[in-house]
């Protein structure tokens, strides 16, 4: 595993990995071995940002920790399915048929694949509680809409690139909508406030 450390200010360092799998592995390892003074662990597509409180953990010490952190045990890296988030979906999204057509499969096949996939939250972004979901076995690359919608309803279940996602609240967006859910993706009063936290397993099922 190669880890390239890039400067990111007085209190953070950006760790660049070769690919998303390494990001997930590094994130797991850092979470499993988390040190006091680590304020932020922010995974993204190719990087993990480590932010510190330098009064507790000087940045130099954090860099040593990142270089030496042992890989997380398989048990820690793959939390029990009991912890998985299950999201009930009504598969009636405005783009469902067109997206299946783009991929050259039937609507039923797309829904079945989306339900069967063992998703995992790779990272969050775009809006509070918006998780980018990945799955090793997901074969589809879904192009974004040419013209993003100005208003995507909260709970919209969507695809873009190699990712699946759910819009936590109404917002603009360019992902293709395949369904909707009543699941609460974001509740600022809850702990944790987001349903989809980095590393968490996710399953979609047909809403009753």
């Amino acid at each position, binding site marked *: 595993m190669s880890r390239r450390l890039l400067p990111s200010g007085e209190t953070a360092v950006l760790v660049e990995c070769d690919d998303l799998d390494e990001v997930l592995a590094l994130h797991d390892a850092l979470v499993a071995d988390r040190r006091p003074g680590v*304020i*932020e662990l922010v995974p*993204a597509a190719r990087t993990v940002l480590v932010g510190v409180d330098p009064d507790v953990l000087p940045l130099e010490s954090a860099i040593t920790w990142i270089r030496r952190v042992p890989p997380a045990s398989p048990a820690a890296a793959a939390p029990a399915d009991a912890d998985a988030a299950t999201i009930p979906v009504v598969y009636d999204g405005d783009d469902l048929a067109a997206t299946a057509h783009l991929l050259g499969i039937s609507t039923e096949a797309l829904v079945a694949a989306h339900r069967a996939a063992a998703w995992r939250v790779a990272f969050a972004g775009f809006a*509070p509680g918006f998780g980018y979901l990945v799955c090793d076995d997901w074969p589809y690359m879904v192009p974004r809409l040419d013209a993003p919608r100005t208003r995507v309803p909260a709970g919209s279940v969507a695809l873009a690139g190699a990712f699946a996602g759910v819009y936590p609240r109404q917002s603009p967006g360019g992902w293709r909508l395949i369904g909707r859910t009543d699941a609460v993706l974001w509740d600022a009063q809850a702990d944790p*406030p987001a349903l989809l936290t980095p590393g968490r397993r996710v399953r979609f099922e047909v809403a009753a």
Partner: protein
Amino acid sequence: MSRLVVEQPGALALVEDLGRAGFAHLGVSRSGALDRGAAKLANRLVGNPDGHAVLEVLVGGFRARFEDAETWFAVAGGWGPVALDGRPVAPYAAARARAGSVLDLGAAERGIRYVLAVRGGIDEPTVLGSRSRDTLAALGPEPVTPGRVLAIGAEPAASVPLIDQDAAFPPASGAVTLALLPGPRADWFTDASRRALFDTPWRVSERADRVGVRLVGAPLTRRVEGELASEATVPGSIQVAGDGQPTILLADGPVTGGYPVIAIVTPAALDAVAQVRPGQEVRFRHA
């Protein structure tokens, strides 16, 4: 318990404290007062802990009435005419308002964001441990509208201190020089552009808010083409869009960005960015 009734919020009045660090992995920015130094100073002037919530008032045109009880307050950050019941009040100093007194913040002459601290702090409900309004994510207390009644918290333990106000300086009115640290993607830019960042003047554009301040100048050119996979940024990151113009990301900036970050404004210099105005000249130096 005293209250502050905002009669006119001016251009934009927001409740802010020192923000909510630690939630970036859930897509939540730090947010908080843009001029953190001013927020801490104003709080200290009235004996508050540094992290009490203050009002961040953009430009001025703000009027509020103190109700129910005598209240200490202090204004820091932006520098301009401050008046209590029509009489001038010294900036960067604690003053006492009687119940019924009216506070006016006129158009700022230097800087662009006043910070108003009241003894006891603005007592709005917290979201993720903070009373800060995040304008991008729409988290925290709603922007203040005319007639809004803001509760003021309990008296802090510390008394109103005697502080040498000469220790505080108003924001610069001319060119502002900001110290920069290297950015994670500096090597995506040509050597000439990396030099030009420091050697050429920049101007603050009209596109300046709590999310970021876009600068205008000779375009920076890239050595590495192609798209950058989105990655986490920190406040102060200078990202360069496809047109070569840099934007300094601030407290409400997105958690991740897809434009390469060429350099990062130091935390100390970031307070000065909170006070720059459209049209003002910005220069960079190595930290």
